[in-house]
């Protein structure tokens, strides 16, 4: 076991932030969920006791009759902002004194860096390049991520949980966000940062980066598994289009069934466009782990090959 390699990656100055984030993300997930569960218990109590609900201030924060519901910004908020600014400044000062920002050799187009990694916050996208061609990984998927984020307020028709932490009242949306953000986005970044080595090959923590490792190209296109040769262009493209179409059809159908079963109120409230967007985004989001599984587990390269583009 060679933990030195992991040590080098972990202590690279530009990777310190992601190491910090590996602690911050679980902490804030816990911190948010803790408050969600506290509110959920309050909600249950109030729902069981409608009389109490009429008089209760409906928050988990303490409340005494006669207290103002608002406070002055000066000093109650500004003093906190001032304190926060001081703490952040102190952290930055200490960090900047003890850790130097890296500077490599001057740019040299003739000397390729291997591995050539983007900064950690882009490694999720770079890792996607393994599973998809650049036009999907670098252009379409980021577009869908941003578009999907922007669509959230317009497809989430649930009126509950507006302005307070809750899990019970928003299970569906919280699960979707956790899968998309905590699982897919962050796991891809972690893989890109800590696992990928020279040639963007997979090196487990504890493995030494081998710059001469040779891999035999085992990956095959999906149609080859079914006896269609790459040279049969039309047949292969038709096969691929059918598979992709079938994925969206079956995936859409499965989502429809599942949503009706587990989120019946959402289905009832959404209009056609909202419902279709929700299904499309869900199917596309799960397309990523499915393609990852096909590639890593079953050595599938492309599911659809055409003369112009591959998926």
């Amino acid at each position, binding site marked *: 076991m060679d933990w030195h390699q992991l040590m080098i990656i972990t202590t690279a100055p530009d990777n*310190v*932030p992601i190491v910090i*984030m590996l602690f*911050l993300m679980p902490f804030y997930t816990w*911190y948010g969920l803790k408050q969600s569960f506290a509110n959920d218990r309050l*909600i249950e109590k*109030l*729902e069981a006791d409608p009389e109490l*609900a009429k008089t*209760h201030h*409906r*928050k988990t*924060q303490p409340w005494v009759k006669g*207290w*103002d*519901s*608002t*406070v*002055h*910004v000066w000093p*109650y908020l*500004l003093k*906190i902002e001032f304190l*926060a600014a001081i703490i*952040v400044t102190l952290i*930055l000062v200490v*960090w900047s*004194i003890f850790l*130097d*920002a890296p*500077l*490599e*050799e001057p*740019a*040299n187009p003739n*000397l*390729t*860096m291997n591995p050539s990694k983007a*900064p950690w*916050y*882009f490694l999720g*996208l770079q890792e996607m390049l393994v599973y998809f*061609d*650049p*036009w999907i990984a*670098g*252009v379409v998927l980021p577009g869908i991520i*941003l578009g999907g984020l922007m669509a*959230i*307020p317009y497809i*989430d028709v649930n*009126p509950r*949980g*507006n*302005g*307070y932490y*809750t899990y019970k009242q*928003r299970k569906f949306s919280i699960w979707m966000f956790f899968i998309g953000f905590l699982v897919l986005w962050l796991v891809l970044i972690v893989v890109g940062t800590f696992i990928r080595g020279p040639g963007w090959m997979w090196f487990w923590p504890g493995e030494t980066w081998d710059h001469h490792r040779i891999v035999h190209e085992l990956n095959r296109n999906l149609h080859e598994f079914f006896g269609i040769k790459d040279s049969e262009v039309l047949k292969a493209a038709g096969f691929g289009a059918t598979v992709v179409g079938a994925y969206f059809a079956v995936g859409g159908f499965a989502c429809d069934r599942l949503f009706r079963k587990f989120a019946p109120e959402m289905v009832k409230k959404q209009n056609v466009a909202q419902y279709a967007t929700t299904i499309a985004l869900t199917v596309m989001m799960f397309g990523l782990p499915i393609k990852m599984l096909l590639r890593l587990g079953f050595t599938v390269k492309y599911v659809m090959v055409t003369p*112009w*583009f591959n998926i």
Partner: protein
Amino acid sequence: MAETPTKPKFKLPSVAELKEGQIWKSIFRHKLDETPRNRSLAVLSNVFLHLHPAKINRDAVRYNYTWGMGGITFYLFLVLTITGVLLMFYYHPSKGQAYRDIMYIMHDVPFGNFTRNMHRWAAHSMIITTWLHMFRVFLTGSYKPPREFNWNIGVLLLLFTMLLSFTGYLLPDDQLGFWAVTVGTNMARATPVLGSEGPFGPQMGITAFNDVRFALLGGSIVDANALLRAYIWHCVAIPIIASVLMIVHFWRIRKDGAISGPAPVMIEQDLSGPVAKKA
């Protein structure tokens, strides 16, 4: 002994006297005693502080609701602006010179290395806090009506925060930045229809000399023009865009009725019956 009348000697005014004087009054438009009126005026009569309302939800000042992440993100943006301007004094965005300027900043400029480090670590931090801020806004459902639009402004801020970092990466003109930007902009080559290697790009007459990548780099390779373009995007264009978006973001927070919570929890009975209005 009769006192001889003299001219009154000059005496330094006391703070209390200063506060009655013309200079003080021209600057501060209100008294400082702790009355509710003065507390409100302290915020409302100050151009920077009047970003805030005079009063807010008593529970919103608790750290546990917002985690302070939006505010910290904004503060980091200010730190980056200040350290960034300082770095600009010593930096020429031209091939060859750029790398030497970074070396100069690191080794010769007083506090240059410190300033550069701070700029770098504040930038990384800003990415993290922006993500955490988005995470909190999601968990508190704060994108729900009437804040849908502000969530969208936020998504754009997220994009531009990351683009700021990305464009800054090339500026030292070292191997790290060069190859990161090469990998990044190679993806632009694959843009459908608009990229020279993207689906249907070649069919539309797109070549390496007129595609999006060419527009980003000001050429077909990462070279002097790309450095200049990255510099202008990084130091001028994106900061302006991000500032405008932040102005809208903050304005909308006020117009959408201030921070969303902590709001009274909703119970199922509210959805059928009349909503109980309480604190």
